[in-house]
């Protein structure tokens, strides 16, 4: 009980601040805002940062179009195009459909480090760029397809992508549900043997019993654990970012970090769906005879997007770290708490997938027609 002391309040303030900043940063609309179907009234507009971001996006998007127009006559305008694409990407990622929600929830649900968060964000942004370029290259350049056909293609890709998010969420929910029950079980056991309860260090504890209490005792709640949260169990995975490491899918692997396959599944689920803006810009560039400039612009846009998504993902991981510190001791109710948060985040991934799939959570529209 002594851990729940004064420091908690300061941390609460920090958390609240982080949440506030994020809320402003990301647009301030709640999920509910997306439920406003056509004709239905929507919640009032949010002023301040949200509308500023919205206005900036629109301005940059139009400037982007202008620089493409200019580039047709004046090659030097291309540098401007690249710069604008980058800034546009940063702002644009604040809009829907860039996987911030899914990636952040995924990171919270898993014991992920911020580094992995950043890598996942970049990978999914690059993948989004690649899908957009592939669709326009194949459909418009090679097949001479119409906008409708391209829109239909995106629609199919979109459904597959949302389906994958549902699958990802369902699996996370299953794994985290077991983790939560395990922690709960442990808590009850531990209540029975109260004397042993200092055996585990924060974040290192695994309900599945992977971590041996004996080698867990170091790296206490410093929050600067070089391995990131809970990485001790698989020492060899410490510095392995998503692509590096592929040992067999052991059951305990599902509960912790590492496992590039899981990272990859999140990247594919999120990155499969291209951004409508990128597709329109690419086709416009094609019409101007500057397709390659469109491709460059798309990649730079993706880079900008990755920066925003990566920052939000980092904040999400940070929020969880704070949450874990708030939870205090790693085992017992603290463990239950952390597993509970993970379970909640897993449920969110599933919920996002279902909402996206059923059209209740608006993603970006592909086009009018």
């Amino acid at each position, binding site marked *: 009980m002594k851990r*729940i002391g004064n420091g908690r309040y300061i941390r*609460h303030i920090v958390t609240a601040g982080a*949440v506030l900043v*994020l*809320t402003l940063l*990301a*647009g*301030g*609309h709640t999920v509910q*805002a997306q439920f*406003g179907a*056509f*004709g*239905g*009234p929507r919640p*009032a*507009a949010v*002023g301040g940062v*949200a*509308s500023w971001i*919205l206005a900036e*996006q*629109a301005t940059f*998007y139009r400037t982007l179009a202008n620089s493409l127009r200019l580039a047709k006559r004046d090659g030097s305008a291309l540098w401007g195009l690249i710069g604008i694409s980058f800034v546009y990407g940063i702002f644009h990622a604040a*809009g*829907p459909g860039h996987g*911030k929600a899914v990636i952040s*929830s995924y990171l*919270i649900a898993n014991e992920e480090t911020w580094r992995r968060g950043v890598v996942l964000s970049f990978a999914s942004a690059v993948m989004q760029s690649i899908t957009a370029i592939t669709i326009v290259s194949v459909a*418009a350049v090679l097949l001479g*397809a*119409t*906008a409708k056909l*391209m829109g239909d293609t995106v629609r199919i890709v979109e459904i597959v992508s949302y389906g994958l998010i549902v699958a990802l969420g369902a699996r996370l929910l299953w794994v985290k549900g077991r983790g939560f029950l395990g922690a709960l079980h442990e808590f009850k056991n531990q209540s029975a043997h109260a004397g042993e309860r200092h055996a585990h260090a924060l974040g290192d504890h695994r309900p599945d019993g992977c971590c041996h209490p004996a080698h867990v005792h170091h790296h206490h709640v410093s929050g600067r654990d070089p391995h990131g949260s809970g990485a001790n169990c698989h020492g060899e995975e410490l510095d392995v970012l998503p692509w590096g490491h592929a040992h067999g899918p052991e059951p305990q692997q599902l509960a912790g970090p590492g496992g590039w396959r899981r990272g990859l599944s999140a990247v594919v689920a999120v990155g499969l769906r291209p951004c*409508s*803006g990128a*597709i*329109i*810009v690419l*086709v416009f560039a*094609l019409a101007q005879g500057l397709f390659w400039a469109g491709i460059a612009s798309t990649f730079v846009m993706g880079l900008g997007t990755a920066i925003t998504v990566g920052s939000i993902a980092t*904040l*999400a991981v940070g*929020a969880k770290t704070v*949450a874990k510190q*708030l939870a205090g001791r790693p085992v017992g*109710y603290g463990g239950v*708490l952390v597993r*509970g*948060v993970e379970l*909640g985040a897993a449920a*969110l991934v599933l919920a*996002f997938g279902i909402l996206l799939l059923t059209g209740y*959570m*608006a993603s*970006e*529209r592909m*086009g*009018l*027609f």
Partner: protein
Amino acid sequence: MTRLRLWLALPVLSMRLAVTVVLVVAASATAQAHPHVWVTMTTDLVYDASGAATGLRQVWTFDDMYSAFATTGIKAKINGQFTRDELEPLAKINVDSLKDYDYFTYATIDGKRNKKAFADPVDYWLTYDPKATVLTLHFTLPFRRPVKAKVLKIEIYDPEFFVDFEFADKNAIKLEDAPQQCAAWTDKPADQNFLPQQQSLNKSFVPSEAFIGMGMDFANKILVQCP
């Protein structure tokens, strides 16, 4: 005792953490889209001999970027020039798809918003301006039943703000064969900074529901008053 307090603290703490996480994620999840399509429009209100409004003749000109996107893959005899016939299939797709969005056109008749005010368009076609490289969609949106109203409000907007509608600088609205005493005017949205703004119009013309809903902030309003 400690054990008991611990149990008691658990639900409160869990709730707090859960709320924090949900807020963080929800905040990052749900920002709004910005426009990708720009439409400049003119609207004619058409009246019959009895003085009832029968429909809207709408002319929507898209921005060049979206026009380029929409015309991809359409075969043209002369490169870069599309005839009305060549654009016929696209016009059909446009009008069919617009149905799903209620043609972005909403009628409020004497203060009552009527969701089923309009029937499907009776005639429609696309034209292409090769110089400005822009597409223009022409269509007539008939009222299901001719409307005789003291105050008729037409709003044209996309609630999701994917499409940004704006009135043309000149002749944005016109009354065709309307009774002499009818007057019409437009009210543009506060689209400079996307902030909600109190309407400056005479209050008697603005039904109480006018302030509900964000889409309204982006709505282009046409108001027609007949005695």
